[in-house]
């Protein structure tokens, strides 16, 4: 019995179990401290739809052995360029959304390609280099947002100055374009953003299908055993670059999905720390530095967003203080530290 229990625990993974139980207990306590469960569920679903694509974007790089994509910001930047450019072109509705994605993907491919070449040159140190590449690109873009010749009055500072605002509303352009597609309302408090969920499902399906192609199979082999892959005639460096491009493109799409749901484009230092919550979520879902499955993304995003939604409302009602931010920092960064200290498979 005891052994069985242990097997179950190790199957689910202790951190996941603890966080899961914590989340469940938050839901149980919620009604007693005056927090509505239905609105909470609604929030979790909404935030899941908002963030899941960003989490999903980590998958290709983990699979190809490039580790956790601490340079996620690169894709985010591509997404921001796409979104801002689409707004500049005054494209409204679906056209604007698709234009934003198209432009974002174009830049993401270029960024990803360069980023992939760099990561191939620093094999073994990908994660730390990626972190700082992410930081530097965000800060470089801070300068660019000031300097680039965007003109749309919706985006530049009102008081004459040049440069883009720190937050730009997409209200008049493509706000909730996915969320409102086939939206289902359950009662007065639950709104299911069907479109965004379907979009995530589509992107997840593409990833799933990709790993059933020849190239996807090769990518998985490169990640789990690069020496083996080489001995089978696979160009390891090229496959890794493909994975980095994929991750970057997905991150670019992910941030646009995020914006259409959130309603704002956050520039300047907004994307600086964006990689950490996504990474924490996927780790929480059961992925490790070099192993991941699609369901890790789903479980992780639900758990992580659940914690983020529930802790402020419930905990704050219990102890009358806003500890949510602190808890978020501890959980997300603690999860990443935990994953980094797990033993990695010794490479041949």
């Amino acid at each position, binding site marked *: 019995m005891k052994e069985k229990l242990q097997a179950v625990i190790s199957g689910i993974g202790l951190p996941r179990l603890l966080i899961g139980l914590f989340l469940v207990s938050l839901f149980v306590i919620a009604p007693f401290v005056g927090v509505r469960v239905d609105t909470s569920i609604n929030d979790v679903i909404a935030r899941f739809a908002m963030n899941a694509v960003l989490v999903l974007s980590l998958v290709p790089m983990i699979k190809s052995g490039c580790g956790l994509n601490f340079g996620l910001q690169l894709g985010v930047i591509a997404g921001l360029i796409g979104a801002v450019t689409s707004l500049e072109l005054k494209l409204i509705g679906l056209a604007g959304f698709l234009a934003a994605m198209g432009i974002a993907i174009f830049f993401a491919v270029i960024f990803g390609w360069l980023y992939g070449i760099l990561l191939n*040159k620093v094999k073994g140190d990908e994660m*730390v280099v990626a972190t700082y590449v992410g930081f*530097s690109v965000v800060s470089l873009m*801070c300068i660019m947002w000031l300097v680039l010749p965007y003109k749309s009055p919706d985006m530049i500072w009102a008081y004459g100055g*040049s440069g883009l605002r720190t937050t730009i509303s997409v209200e008049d352009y493509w706000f909730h374009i996915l969320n409102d597609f086939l939206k289902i309302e359950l009662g007065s408090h639950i709104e299911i953003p069907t479109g965004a969920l379907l979009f995530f499902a589509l992107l997840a399906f593409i990833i799933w299908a990709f790993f059933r192609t020849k190239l996807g199979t090769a990518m998985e082999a490169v990640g789990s055993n690069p020496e083996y892959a080489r001995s089978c005639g696979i160009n390891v460096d090229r496959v890794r670059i493909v994975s980095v491009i994929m991750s970057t493109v997905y991150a670019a799409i992910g941030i646009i999905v995020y914006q259409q749901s959130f309603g704002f484009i956050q520039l300047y230092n907004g994307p600086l720390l964006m990689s950490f919550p996504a990474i924490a979520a996927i780790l929480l879902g059961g992925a490790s530095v070099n192993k991941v499955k699609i369901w890790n993304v789903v479980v992780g995003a639900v758990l992580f967003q659940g914690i983020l939604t529930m802790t402020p409302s419930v905990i704050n009602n219990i102890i009358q203080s806003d500890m949510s931010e*602190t808890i978020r*920092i501890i959980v997300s*960064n603690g999860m990443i530290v935990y994953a980094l200290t797990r033993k990695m498979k010794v490479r041949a």
Partner: protein
Amino acid sequence: MKAMNPVLKALIDYAVPIMFILLVAVAAPLSGLSVEFLANEVMMRLARNSFLILSLLIPVMAGMGMNFGMVLGAMAGEIVLILITDWRIVGIPGILLAMLISTPIAIVFGYFAGVVLNKAKGREMVTGLMLGFFMNGVYQLIVLYGMGKVIPITNKEILLTRGYGIRNAINLEGIRQSLDNLIKLNLFGVQVPVATLLVIAALCLFIIWFRRTKLGQDMRTVGQDMDIARTVGIDVDRTRVVSIVISTVLASYGMIIFLQNMGTLNTYNSHEQIGFFCIAALLVGGASVAKASIPNVFLGVILFHTVFVVSPRAGAQLIGEAQLGEYFRVFITYGVIAFSLALYAWRRKVERENERKKQMMLHRAALQGKGGAGFAQADR
């Protein structure tokens, strides 16, 4: 494989410092700041930052790279400064007492960091970085929720109005620049905080002395090759933990010196950036992940902070946008770290390959007499 051109090699080795010297040469005149002002600024920053940056040297020696976990030490220093302020201990005794009390806290933090980093061998830097972010949460828990509730705080001036938790900014009136002003010298219009510099000099001597101890030698051994160190009987894990503990303790002292100069403590932000700035400065001084020396520290502080001082003004002069200079500062901080780390990782790979080729060539040459292939072929 031909040996790399020595000029090119030096150029790559010192790419970062050279870049910064050029940057200073261009931006300093553009900024229009006077030499005297610049000299004063740089001197002040030298005194303020050097101790912190010196704390990074020992883990590099032990092969653990840049100690991004130094923010843990900085947090220890800050926690103690909050206490000292609450207790109203002022002046030099206040600084000394802060150092004294921060020591055990920093040892505990450092031990924790060392143990964690031992579990992440080969990924020390990214783990240290994440550990810093993680501990930032723990720090908030202590300072924002623990202080005034669990840890008694009596001074109403530093508490939030809600009755617990420390305010965003604390005035360190009591110890402000008391070390800097202890012995002050005016050299050609430059204010020199002699006492602070003496403390820094003492730390330099300590590091030089430490390198010559058995422990220092063990750290160098561990840094060069953990497996061999283990084979000859060195307790590798312990040695690594000790190096991080020392670094963390020194970082906590460094933070106290840093803050006594600043005079105010940004309770929740002071430590966040400090790791980045210190590491960037050290790298600007020509250090790498595997090699860092005392001259690197001072060269780095001077170059990095000169650029820091002049870039907003230069930005304003050049494009008419002071904000640009601000962003530029942040960019160079991150950019320098990214560039140095990438350059180092790439060079290590190239060097390993060159070493292999060299060995192969030597091997062939040695076998030549025995009927092996000639040099001509090996030289291709």
